[in-house]
């Protein structure tokens, strides 16, 4: 698209043009510019803090389970009793109402309908959600960059094939595509030839979400590469006899840094949302594994007697996605103030 030629502000530090470019804000380096922006705004600081707390506590799940709660995410305590304020209390009462938050080691946030410790499940669920989202985000960025780069750089029939393929993938509503893939693979698993995943593997939702979102990266990257390949420094390299592979590696890829850094937090946020939605519906993480979406859907069954089972995991999920989106905004404003990357994404949609 023509818009991609407006990329004048895009060259990043470390790019081949860096040597003779005038010293400007781009010179401090992408990561440092992003870091400065995060540090200097309260939204950036707050969301970074929230993410550190969420990620840190999810990583610490086994510590909490083994040393504080002394129970695992799958252990049922349906017929157990615990001592609360000096009295023995049923974990799950006769009429099936689970215990509420005790704010002590075990059942810190109460139990679910199966007598499982909600705090422990939430921590392990967060671990699964984040793990799936991380793999899916890397996959989306990798696949999207590869397709967009190849299509934009080689143009011609290669571009036609890739763009039509993306059109087709995008023709199915993304949530329906995710559900279809989730249902198709939940029982049988996936066989990719080199690797095989069982139906309850956490890798399956990661693969699905990584695949369905790739369009959102491939399209803007294609547009930006189309613009980059016409720039003088690419022509200079070509006139010196550089091969396509070398031009891609040395001239194009370093200039995609800004775009990828702008896209990464937004894609991560969307990934967390899709993972939660798919798991909520039953097309993502399969039982007995936990994830935020799965815990919320289990919580909804006992919403009336135990609303905290829905409220708390949903709040953690919402805070995580919100923080990622805010972080994305802050970073975008700092390193892509003209909104070139998102404009490229919008044009292509």
């Amino acid at each position, binding site marked *: 698209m023509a818009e991609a030629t407006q990329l004048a502000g895009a060259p990043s530090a470390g790019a081949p043009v860096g040597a003779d470019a005038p010293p400007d804000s781009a010179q401090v380096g992408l990561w440092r510019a992003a870091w400065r922006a995060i540090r200097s705004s309260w939204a950036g600081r707050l969301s970074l803090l929230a993410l550190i707390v969420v990620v840190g506590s999810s990583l610490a799940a086994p510590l909490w389970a083994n040393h504080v709660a002394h129970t695992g995410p799958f252990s049922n305590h349906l017929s157990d009793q615990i001592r609360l304020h000096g009295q023995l209390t049923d974990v799950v009462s006769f009429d099936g109402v689970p215990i509420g938050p005790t704010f002590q080691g075990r059942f810190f946030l109460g139990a679910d309908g199966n007598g499982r410790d909600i705090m422990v499940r939430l921590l392990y669920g967060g671990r699964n959600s984040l793990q799936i989202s991380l793999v899916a985000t890397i996959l989306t960025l990798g696949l999207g960059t590869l397709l967009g780069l190849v299509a934009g750089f080689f143009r011609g029939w290669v571009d036609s094939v890739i763009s*039509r393929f993306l059109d087709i993938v995008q023709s199915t509503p993304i949530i*329906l595509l995710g559900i279809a893939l989730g249902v198709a*693979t939940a029982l049988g698993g996936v066989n990719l030839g080199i690797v095989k995943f069982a139906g309850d593997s956490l890798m399956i939702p990661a693969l699905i979400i990584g695949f369905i979102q790739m369009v959102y990266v491939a399209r803007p990257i294609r547009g930006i590469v189309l613009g980059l390949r016409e720039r003088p420094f690419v022509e200079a390299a070509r006139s010196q006899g550089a091969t396509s592979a070398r031009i891609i590696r040395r001239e194009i890829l370093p200039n995609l840094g800004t775009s990828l850094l702008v896209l990464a937090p937004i894609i991560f946020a969307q990934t967390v949302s899709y993972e939660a939605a798919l798991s909520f*519906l039953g097309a993502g993480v399969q039982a007995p594994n936990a994830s935020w979406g799965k815990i919320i859907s289990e919580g909804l069954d006992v*919403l009336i007697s135990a609303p905290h089972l829905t409220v708390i995991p949903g709040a953690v999920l919402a805070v995580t996605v919100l923080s990622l*989106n805010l972080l994305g905004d802050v970073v975008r404003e700092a390193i892509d103030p003209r909104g070139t990357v998102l404009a490229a994404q919008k044009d292509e949609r």
Partner: protein
Amino acid sequence: MIGFIIRRLGSMVLVLFAVSVLIFVIFNVIPSNDPAVRMAGKNPTPTQIEAIRRDWGFDKPVTTQYVRMIEKTFNGELISYSNRQNVTERIKEGLPRTLSLTFFSSLFMLLGGILLGMLGALKPNSKSDRAVNAFAVTGISLPVFWTGSLASYYLGSKAGVIPAGGYVEISEGGVLQWFWHLLAPSIVISLLFIGIYSRVVRGDLLDALRADYVRTAEAKGLSRRRVVVRHALRNALIPMITLWGLDVAITLGGGAVLTETVFDLDGVGAYLAESVQTLDVPPVLAITMFGAIAVVVMNALVDILYAYLDPRIRL
């Protein structure tokens, strides 16, 4: 113009074919176990599996399997193996509900997106602009199934301010009750899209307000309102309307799975969610196809409409 319409419809047919192949690949090629076993749902008998295998042609070549799938999906005889219901009938039953939800939610997201986007663009970096921005980020970030279920429980069941869920037909309860039951779910869906649209509109309107034709309009002495509404906004809305058209198609095609489920609307999306619970393949297949058709057809319609409005596109 007629030539453009024919070309556009031709490519629409091609895309529809390609999408059906994609869906075929998803359900019949990707899974590594026997598709007949999966199709049969939970706890099938060997005779059932054998019947499904013959019926769907799973023992035949891939091309035959594809043709069988298309025939089955479109001849209205697709049957769920989990509960023996006719899939097409169920989708038809759910359609008026989904249609009603789509009607109100698309209206809300359109109006909300335009209004908030204008609010932001007319006074950039002001307090109201920042408030709109904060609202947009929150709308994009909140999980609809969570906000929806909490709204339905706390505002509906507990406080009784809104209906907790369910759908009332116009013939049963009148237009007012029909609207009243769709209000909360429509708002919940719109929040997300208002967030997206308000940002798109804000950006495009800011660009438009800097354009030459706006300066010309101002120089002619037109009122501010007329310049903004008749000149700038008209042009700035085009990208948003494209997105909107797609999102309407998606909601219509069962994409409001989460909201429909949480508010118990029992439309196409809710039927999909219900089928996922039992990993019931035939409904999931049919609804995915249905959603894809809705999007592809809507895309073609939007393109044709643009070609009519803007002759340059026809070239």
